[in-house]
């Protein structure tokens, strides 16, 4: 293991990738779920019985964080970052892992926030036309499509590197 990049080893970049996947996607979901939750509170103030349906809509922007977490976790398992596993990756592999983590991280960040906004707007549907709530869910799911695509590519890349 002689090849390094300004003294940083491949192992470090793999760690960085796993961290970024969880960090960025998690931030996106946290923001999204937060935005949706604020709107949900407004609905529940008027009608506490709508807690269940607002909760479902609030939950939708939460998947990005899970996707990011999954990618981060897979990288950890495959590259031996788990307790007891000795890790040493060459620079090329480390950088590839970092690149593989970017789609789910960056798309998770942006789509999580955007989906949170759509979910928040969907709370209006729950407030005024509760029977039409599922349409609000579909709108939010439209945004999630891109998070899923990002997750898919990250996943295929990670599997490609390690399997």
């Amino acid at each position, binding site marked *: 293991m002689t090849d390094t990049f300004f003294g940083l080893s491949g192992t470090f970049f793999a760690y960085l990738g796993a961290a970024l996947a969880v960090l960025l996607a998690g931030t996106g979901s946290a923001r999204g779920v937060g935005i949706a939750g604020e709107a949900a509170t407004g609905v529940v103030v008027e009608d506490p019985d709508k807690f269940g349906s607002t909760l479902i809509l609030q939950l939708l922007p939460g998947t990005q964080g899970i996707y990011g977490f*999954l990618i981060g976790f897979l990288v950890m398992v495959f590259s031996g970052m788990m307790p007891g596993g000795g890790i040493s990756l060459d620079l090329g592999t480390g950088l590839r892992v970092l690149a593989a983590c970017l789609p789910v991280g960056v798309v998770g960040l942006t789509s999580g926030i955007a989906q949170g906004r759509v979910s928040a707007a969907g709370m209006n549907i729950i407030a005024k036309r509760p029977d039409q709530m599922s349409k609000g869910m*579909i709108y939010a*799911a439209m945004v999630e499509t891109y998070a899923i695509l990002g997750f898919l590519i990250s*996943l295929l890349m990670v599997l490609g590197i390690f399997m």
Partner: protein
Amino acid sequence: MILKMEKISAFGLLSDKDAVIRALMRERCVQLSAPETLESYDELKELTEVPAGDVYALEQRQSRYAAALSGMSFYTQKAGMFASRPSVDYDKLEDAAMLEKAEAQCAEVEAVVAEISELRGAKNKDLFLKASLEPWAGDGLPMELTGTRAVSFARYLLPAKADMQMLEARRAKAAPAGAVGIVSEDKEQRYVIAFCHRSEEDALWDVLKEHGAARASFSGLTGTAKENIASCDKRIARVDARIAELENKLREIGKDIYPLKYAYDLTAVQIQRGKANNDLLSTRETFCFTGWVPETTKSDVQDILDEYGCHYRFEQAADKEEPPILLKNSKIVTPFESVTEMYSLPAYRCMDPDGVVSFWYFLIFGMMLSDAGLGLLLVIGGFLLLQKKGYLTKSANAMFPALVIGAVVAFSGAVINSIVGVCVSFAGVLIMGAALYTVISRSPSQKGKLIKVITMGGVSTVFWGTIFGSWFGDLIPTIAKVFLGVPEYNAFIILDPLQQALNVMIISMSMGFVHIMVGMGLKAYLLIKRGHPWEALFDVGFWMMTLIGLVAMLAAMILLGTESMVFTVGVILAVAGAIGLVLTQGRDKKNPIMKLMNGITSLYDVTGYLSDVLSYSRILALGLASGVIAQVFNIMGTLAGGGILGAIIFIVVFALGTVLNVGINTLGSYVHTARLQYVEFFGKFYEAGGKPFKPLMAQTKYIDVINKEEI
């Protein structure tokens, strides 16, 4: 299937009007049209006498019940999300004894609520008085004191920022024999008492006024502030005790407020009947109405109208009319109507897609959730939920053991861990499927549609999970390795989505391709049915040729090479289709150059089809997500190692993880399967915008009104 609607016009004697409305409401067989839609409405209006029916009194009564119910809302035991609703036979809805009970309950609640609000008012007054007395608690002087014959005494409020030194200096000049003292102070005010000789009273007041003082008045109070505060406290305690007593009374009533709910719903039905009564045009002796009747209940309507000697006639819907939509499907397909309804009902002259939707929804949902363990949970959990809600009949309930046996068989197949095991698992899937089929076909079709969709999706999930070898992720290998000491446990998997992700993606997209082709086929069917066979060929047929040709070329290139027969056929199909498109897609333009231009540019639509197919890759992504989440929790659970303690930790982590996994991924699969139906599939052929059939019926909030014959 969209039920055929016929338009009815009926005429009858006014004396029968009420009975006819009652009977129609009972059978839920006709949707009344607004009288304005009658052909000769203007002439008829001349003859119409304003209906005498008055729903105002009923509405007042209902709002009293509503107020009593909302007053009770804090003191009623919540029924819970999963509880079933009581049901009452339509003919026995008017129950005088129950109504009397409700009246008594309502009066009692009203009296208690009124007393509580009065007591709360009194308490607030005392609280306010107490707060205003507290600053004076230290002066120990009676509140009614205004001085003696020679000395004047008064209490004042001074702003906190008043300059006390200046005040004191000026007081000394204006009232040398007087005194000003601070009793207490807070952030905003100083509470001040002042004495002086009667002759200096006005002068001192002038000084105080200049510093912003206001007189504090407590008219009517006797005794010191402290004594008054004590008596306030005593009164407040008494009021609190009484309120608690009354609240207990409400809680006692809240144990059974069925009569109130019943009365609310009964009044609602009476109001609906009254409104229907007003909506029908009436003369002094007769009434008439028009409406829509689905073909299935036509005979019910005829029976009722014949019984009361009404004159009526049925007509077909005119071309420009849009009759309301009522769907009728087999009991297995009916739950999937909820998926279509969520998008929009079909237009009357389109088609009911539910049969096709049910197949694809079932298939794709299972592949998206894709973990057999989660599938088992959905099947068992969904059944129990249906049971709890009271949506199942007795004979359906009896199928539960069969369902459990199927689940056990399916899971034991996974434990066997070989090709035989997979066959056993499939047998389990078949047993569950057959049991669930029986359950659903023996239950009322209109109840709990969404739960049924998810429960059936669970069977599909177990099927796909068996193929993907995912039972709560890698639960079985994990247990074998960590707790049973089998170091090399290799799970037998037909198609491992982690190892063969690309293959699963190709399967997903191929399914998507077929799904889209089916959608286009339905479009062609609609066009041909409406007498446009050429458009079906030009707009659908050529595209299908092109797309199938392209896919055949691609498949042949990967699998067989470009020399193969399939490739040649693919090229021919694609080229022929493309030529057809170029020649026909500009057919509504006059100019031949424009015709050609439009034809060529129409080929760009191929990108749309490409993105539609790619969209199905989400099946793989969501499928992997549920399997990998389960694996992650399995790994986390085993971090503590084997042994008893390790097993306990594993069980806790596994339980939490599975709850999270099943929640998130069921929601995701439900929503994204729906999306594939709406955007990729419906986009090809579906015409939305039907208005639902809203028959004259009893609409209630708390209790279900049923007909005797209904199973």
